[in-house]
């Protein structure tokens, strides 16, 4: 819930939901999960291999595996939600003008939804295995499962 109230009397009238509490808990729970997912991810992409060697093939191979698809998708959703809610905290703090805050949020949330959509598409809706086995160009218009 955005802060509309400039005065506490207004804030009081607005109160009564547990939404902020829910987000607060979510930040902690998702944070805990992300420690493993994100640090694991970084370990795999930077320590186990040379990040400079990551290429299309690496991606395609990884994204052909259902376990990694799930891993990556959970990481994507959690970190986006976690990060965007964090950004909301920051915007609530820093953008004091209600109108400006509203529009900044519309823009950033749209961007996040877009990224989530594209990311999910690539993870769940795209068959990289085909491209891999042929090791050639992909017909990306197909591949729906």
């Amino acid at each position, binding site marked *: 819930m955005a802060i509309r109230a400039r005065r506490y009397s207004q804030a009081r009238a607005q109160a009564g939901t547990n939404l902020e509490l829910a987000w607060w808990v979510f930040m902690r729970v998702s944070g805990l999960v992300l420690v493993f997912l994100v*640090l694991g991810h970084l370990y795999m992409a*930077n320590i186990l291999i040379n990040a400079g060697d990551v290429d299309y093939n690496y991606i395609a191979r990884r994204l052909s595996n259902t376990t990694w698809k799930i891993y990556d998708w959970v990481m994507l959703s959690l970190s986006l939600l976690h990060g965007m809610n*964090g950004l909301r905290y920051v915007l609530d703090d820093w953008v004091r003008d209600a109108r400006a805050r509203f529009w900044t949020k519309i823009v950033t949330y749209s961007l996040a939804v877009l990224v989530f959509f594209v990311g999910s598409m690539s993870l769940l809706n795209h068959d990289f295995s085909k491209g891999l086995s042929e090791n050639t*160009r*992909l017909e990306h218009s197909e591949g729906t499962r």
Partner: protein
Amino acid sequence: MYRGREGQWAFFLHRLSGIAILLYLLIHVLNISAAMWGPEVSERLFAIEHTPIFRIGLVGVIAAVLYHALNGLRVILMDFTAWGVRLQRELWYGVWLLFALFFVPALIKIVPEILRTMGVI
């Protein structure tokens, strides 16, 4: 500048690192997803990403994630235990200790790789 102490800087850095990671995350996802459009698109983007500048940037992102994750755990401890608050200063130093413990080996692994791509070694 207000002369706050450890807690204030822990918070500023947590916020800064959080935003930095988010920004990177958005770019990173789009970048990886570009694989959908085939190897050419993908490889073109990777070419940019493999330049030294971007690699150094990535090291920064790793540092940010590491700090944010460790300090996030500190925040969680403070939120759910009584001693977490009492020992917040010590916990913050602990964060830096663990940070160094993880980050230095990572540097030892990654920096030479970057230098090699730059042709320095």
